[in-house]
């Protein structure tokens, strides 16, 4: 039902509202009752769902540095239209991850300690620094979008002047901490299952984040390109899809070469708790989408790309959760399943992310449609949901 003059209620709005409220309640519980009463974390399993979520958030936000590097450092200017969505995705992703990290800390009030108390031998210290610096870089890269809207131009010039070193710095920081999330586990060879533990963890984390980050941008261009306006022309999107396929292939080769050289392929010959988890991630996230993306028809079709990129993202989530949870379980003696409060906090924060994204793209010039003369919005075709988002047009930005 819709009332003329009021924004249409979509199914998403009540769902996200409920999730955010539940998440907020769960967070209150976590801070008043402590970690023990509200999570299923134990001495044997000190890291759980939230760390997995951090890996996921950072990995999916990888588009921020790949697209910036491609467009502004390698001059692939035809991809200009997705730079802003990529930066926004990364910015929101990083802010949420920092938020989850603070909730996860036993002493959230001490969260600033890594900034003043250094330990250069700690991967965690390196990650904290990279997260903080890169979030700063992202906020500077994102600032012009807000300033443009507010019509304040002098800081934009200032940011523009330092943009080249800033972008190079951002790309380097991303390379470092995307791989460092893998390095976190280099120190637990006796705990992490051999299907996931490898000295190559940092390299594998880096390659897979490129595939998942690119998949996220492709997904965004598909979701937000309704109503006849495309964010990215089909051939350009197909080229991105090809890049995803290349990253997937490289990942697959390195991963299996590594399993082979460590003699761990035999782990895959039997069906066990671990090998099933491994098959799930490698088939859903890497093999099937790779095969799909080999076909020109899939790369140029919206539905095909939807399917392939959703699978890459899902398989990526599987991979990170397997590294952070499944691989550390001692099945069946000692396993871990997150508590409801852990799940609610994660879902709530995810909902905050989605709401923030759609709120910002509605009010700020993030998506700039490429179609030269956008068709005027007519009635939505029967049977299809009405577009939730209408891309901003240049006219909107002119000061009235």
């Amino acid at each position: 039902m819709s009332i003329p003059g009021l924004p249409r209620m979509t199914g998403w709005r009540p769902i996200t509202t409920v999730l955010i409220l539940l998440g907020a309640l769960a967070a209150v519980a976590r801070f008043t009752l402590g970690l023990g009463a509200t999570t299923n974390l134990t001495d044997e399993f000190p890291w759980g769902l939230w760390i997995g979520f951090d890996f996921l958030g950072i990995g999916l936000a990888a588009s921020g540095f790949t697209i910036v590097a491609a467009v502004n450092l390698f001059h692939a200017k035809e991809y200009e239209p997705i730079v802003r969505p990529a930066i926004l995705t990364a910015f929101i992703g990083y802010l949420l991850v920092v938020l989850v990290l603070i909730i996860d800390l036993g002493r959230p009030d001490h969260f600033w300690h890594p900034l003043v108390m250094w330990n250069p031998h700690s991967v965690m210290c390196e990650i904290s620094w990279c997260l903080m610096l890169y979030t700063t870089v992202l906020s500077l890269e994102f600032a012009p979008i807000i300033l443009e809207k507010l019509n304040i131009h002098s800081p934009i010039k200032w940011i523009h002047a330092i943009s080249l070193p800033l972008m190079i710095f951002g790309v380097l920081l991303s390379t470092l901490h995307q791989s460092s999330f893998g390095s976190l586990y280099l120190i637990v060879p006796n705990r992490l299952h051999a299907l996931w533990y490898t000295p190559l963890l940092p390299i594998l984390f880096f390659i897979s984040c490129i595939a998942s980050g690119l998949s996220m941008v492709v997904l965004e261009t598909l979701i937000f390109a309704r109503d006849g306006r495309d964010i990215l022309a089909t051939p350009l999107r197909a080229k991105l899809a090809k890049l995803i396929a290349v990253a997937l292939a490289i990942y697959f080769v390195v991963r299996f070469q590594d399993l082979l050289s460590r003699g761990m392929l035999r782990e895959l010959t039997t069906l066990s708790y671990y090998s099933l988890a491994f098959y799930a991630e490698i088939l859903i996230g890497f093999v099937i989408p790779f095969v799909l993306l080999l076909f020109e028809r899939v790369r140029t079709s919206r539905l095909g790309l939807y399917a392939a990129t959703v699978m890459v993202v899902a398989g990526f989530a599987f991979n990170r959760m397997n590294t952070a949870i499944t691989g550390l379980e001692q099945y069946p003696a000692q396993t871990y399943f997150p508590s409801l409060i852990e799940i609610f906090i994660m879902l709530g924060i995810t909902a905050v992310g989605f709401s923030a994204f759609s709120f910002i793209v509605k009010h700020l010039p993030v998506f700039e449609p490429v179609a030269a003369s956008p068709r005027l919005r007519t009635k939505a075709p029967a049977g299809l949901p009405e577009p939730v988002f209408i891309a901003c047009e240049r006219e909107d930005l002119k000061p009235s």
Partner: protein
Amino acid sequence: MNQKKAMLIDLTLCVGCNACQSACKEENHLPPKEEKYLSLTAYTALSKYNDLYIRRMCQHCDVPTCVSVCPVGALTKLEAGPVAYDEDKCIGCRYCLQACPFHVPKYEWSSTKPRIQKCKFCASRLAKGLQTACSEACPTGATKFGDRDELLNEAARRIATEPGKYVPRIYGKEDVGGTSMLYVSPVPFEQLGFDPRLGKTPMPMLTMSALSKVPNVLSVGGVMLGGIWWITNRRSEVQAFEASQKEEQTRQHEDKP
């Protein structure tokens, strides 16, 4: 460095009287009930394998994993041997729990200001020149306190004089880079719950192999990205220039006739 203290734990001498745990609890003001596993209130515990009792506690490694992973340096290795913990620095990331190869640190999960708890190697007693509470209490000499070098000699001597009684190995001499707790045993250590997968390399070396590449990534990567930018930028400039030249030529061409 002769100052480094250690404890020699001779499994053949331990009778399982639990005096070490009682003394430890008294020293650290912990509730005196007997416990079988390491916990927040038991910094040491005896686990039983067949007829043997094995003392578990923080091994106070020479190159401690926990010290290397702690992002804020809340854990430090003191010169005398103890691995000390500073709760005022701790942020509660629990990386030490995750990384410790001996599963030693325990976390105050039920607190809203949680800390880790583990054996302190009686650092305050050591500073006063005293020996540890547990070694003082041990009635059979199964736990012996002393300088690490001397204890290593002593352990080697015991094994050499009674080769039938011991397996020829001092656990902790070189394991994970050496520890302050040295064990001698009548049966192979793998049968006593000691993790056979831990080698002689200190665990922090595994991380350093990746972390040591950070400066290279920054410098080489920075130069490379800058170079790529310069080349691609130049190329697009040249392309733009050539395009404008061509346009001018054709315009001149059209103007001539």
